[in-house]
C-alpha cells in the first residue's frame, strides 16, 4: 500500500488511493484489495466487476476524456481524478467545473499529473479539492498556491456568486 502525501481540503494529508494505469495494450492489473482509481476505459469494460470488488473505487479522466462519459455513473465513484498530462493543457479546468456545477458531483475531485503550486488557485476555483503535487516539488511550499489572490470576479465552483452580485 502506498502512503504518499497529497493536499486535500487545504491540508497536507497521507493518502492511500492507488492510481491504476493501463499498459500499452490497454490492460490494467488490479490489486486484490485497497482503494483504486481506474482509467475510464477499464470502467467502461468492467463496471460490474469493479463495483463488486473489495475496496473503494475512483475513476480518472485523461484530458481528452470528457466528463459527459461518466455523467450518469457518478454515484459509483468516491473520487474522480483529472489528469493534466502537461500543465499547459487546460481542458481539465472545464471538466472539473462541469462535474461540480453541471453534474452535481459532491465527492472528491483530484488533480493528478503535471500539477504544481501555481495552478492550484485556478484548480481550486474550478472545484478540485485534492492535489497530487508532481515529483520534485515541495508539497509544503506548494500548498501556499491555493490562495494567492484573495478576491475573485467570477462565479465558479468555489463561489456561486460573481463579485458584481456581492460588491
Amino acid at each position, binding site marked *: 500500500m502506498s502512503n504518499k502525501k497529497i493536499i486535500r481540503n487545504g491540508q497536507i494529508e497521507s493518502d492511500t488511493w492507488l492510481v491504476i494505469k493501463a499498459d500499452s495494450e490497454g490492460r490494467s492489473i488490479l490489486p486484490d484489495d485497497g482503494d483504486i482509481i481506474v482509467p475510464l476505459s477499464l470502467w467502461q469494460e468492467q463496471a460490474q466487476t469493479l463495483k463488486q470488488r473489495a475496496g473503494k473505487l475512483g475513476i480518472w479522466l485523461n484530458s481528452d476524456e470528457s466528463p459527459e462519459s461518466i455523467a450518469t455513473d457518478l454515484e459509483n465513484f468516491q473520487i474522480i481524478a483529472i489528469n493534466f498530462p502537461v500543465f499547459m493543457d487546460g481542458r481539465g*479546468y472545464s471538466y472539473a467545473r462541469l462535474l461540480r456545477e453541471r453534474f452535481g458531483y459532491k465527492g472528491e475531485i483530484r488533480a493528478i499529473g503535471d500539477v*504544481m503550486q501555481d495552478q492550484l488557485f485556478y484548480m481550486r476555483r474550478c472545484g478540485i479539492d485534492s492535489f497530487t503535487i508532481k515529483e520534485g516539488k515541495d508539497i509544503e511550499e506548494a500548498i501556499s498556491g491555493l490562495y*494567492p489572490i484573495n*478576491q*475573485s*470576479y467570477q462565479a*465558479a465552483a468555489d463561489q456561486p456568486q460573481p463579485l*458584481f452580485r456581492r460588491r
Partner: protein
Amino acid sequence: MYVYDDYDQQIVNDRVAQFRDQTQRFLAGKISDDEFLPLRLQNGLYIQRHAPMLRIAIPYGMLASRQLRKLADVSRKFDKGYGHFSTRQNMQLHWPKLEQVPDILAELATVQMHSIQTSGNCIRNTTTDQFAGVARDELEDPRPYCELIRQWSTFHPEFAYLPRKFKIAVNANPTADRAATLVHDIGIHIVQNESGENGFKVFVGGGLGRTPVIASLVREFLPKKHLLTYLEAILRVYNRLGRRDNKHKARIKILVRAMTPEKFTELVEQEWLQLKDGPNTVTAEEFERLKTFFTEPEYQSLPQQDEHFLALQTENNFFANWVKRNVTPHKKPGYAAVTLSLKKTGIAPGDATHEQMDAMADLADNYSFGELRVSHEQNIVLADVKQSDLHSLWRDAKQHGFATPTLGLLNDMICCPGGDFCSLANAKSIPIAQQIQERFQDLDYLYDIGDLDLNISGCMNACGHHHVGNIGILGVDKKGAEFYQVSLGGASGVDASLGKILGPSFSEKEVANVIEKIIDVYIDKRTEEERFIDTYRRIGIDPFKQQVYANV
C-alpha cells in the same frame, strides 16, 4: 474612467505579491524555465533577443494623466527612458531587468495598472474604439462592457490555459470599426434590434498570423444581460475542443473553420442554454454601476463651430492640414478629439520617450480633462478638446513632435517592433518604416495620395497586422537574408478584407521603390473620389503587378 474599489485594488496587489514570489522561486532554481514560461507570460513578460520585454495593460486604451506619468517614470527608472505603444492598446518596455519586474508591477499597482494577461494562452486585454464615448455615430459607449469583460476575464479560473491566446474587441459604431474587431477571436458589435433595444452581435474566429481569417457571425442579437454567459459558452467550447497538438493550428479561428461556423455556433448555443440565466447573468445594477464611471466630463455649452478656430485655419495652412488629418469631429458642439501622432520620421512607430509621455500627460491635463487614449494605430488621443483650444494645443504638440499631420496617410504606419527587438522576427521592420517615411516626406504628395493604411510585420505572427493593411509588408527569410513580401487590398474597418500577395518578395533596399511604383499606379488609375483601397478593389491586383515587376 473606471476607478478601482478595494476589491479591484486587492486583486492587483495580490498579483504583485504572487509574481514577486514566482520570480524569486524561479531565480532560486525552484521553478524551471519551462514552468516559469506561462507564469511570466500571463504577466506580460517575454524573454526577448536583447532583454526581457514587459507588456503593460492599458485596458481598452484608457489612460489617466497620472497613469501616463507613472509609465514615464517607470521607463525612466527601470528602462532606457522610452516605451512602445502596441496595436492592442498596451505599452511595452523593451529593456527591463527580470529581478526588477516585481518592483515595476508594484509601482504600476499604485496607479491602478498591471500587466495581467497581456500575453500567454489566456484572455488578453479587451480593446475598443479610441473614440469611444465621443464619436458622433456611436450607438452607445462601449467602455462599460469592456470593463465588464476585463473583470470577468481577469484570472478566470477555467480559461487560464487555453490552447492559444485569445483576444476580444468591442465596437459600437456602425460606420467605422477602429478596433479591427473582425480580426479578433471574438468581435462584439453593439447593435440595436427592431424594438429599439441595444444588444450584441457576436463574431467569432477572426485573426491574423499565419492563417488570416475574417470572423464569422455566430449570433445576430444577444440581449445585454447574457454577455458573460455567452462568452463563457464560447470559451468553454474552445477550451475543450481547440487543437493543442500544433501551436499553429490552435487558435479558435482554426476550430471554427474546421468544424464550420454553423456547427460551432450550434455547440456554443447548446452550451449556452445550460449557462443562460445562471449567476453570471449581468444585473441591471452592475450595468448601472459600470456606466457611472464613463459619464460625460463637465463639458461647457458651446456653439457648434468656434468662429475663431475656423478663421485660424484659413490663415494658417499648416494648422489647417493638421486639423484636417489629426482632428476628429466630436458629439458635443464646440469640442473635438485630437490624435497626437507617434509617427515622426526617424522614430519607431508607436515609440514615446519618457519626456514625451510626461508632455502628453500635461497636454491631457491642460486640454482634455486629464484623460488620454491609446489607439490601435499606435497613436495617442485627447478625446475632449475645445475647438477654441486647438490652435494652442497644436503649437504645444509641435514642440514635442506629436503634430505630424499625417493621420491615416501612408506615413502613419502600423509597424511591429520587428528584428531590432523581437526574437521571433524574420526581418527588421522599423528600418523599413523609416525608409518609406523618408521617401514620402512631401506633405502635399502625401495629402494627394490620401487615406492609406500601410502595415508592417517582421514575421508571420503579424503583430503589425500586415494582412489588413491596404498595403501590407511582411518580413520573410530567404536563405538567411531579410526579404519583404508585399500584399495589397487588406482593410480592417467595417469592410474588412485580407490583402493579396503581389508576387515574389523584395530585398530591403527595394522596398521604398516598390511602394512608390504601387502609388504611381493608383495615382494614374484613380477616379477623383477614390481612395487607394477603392481603386484597388475596382481594378484588381494585375495593373500593380505589371508595374512593379516590369523589367525584372
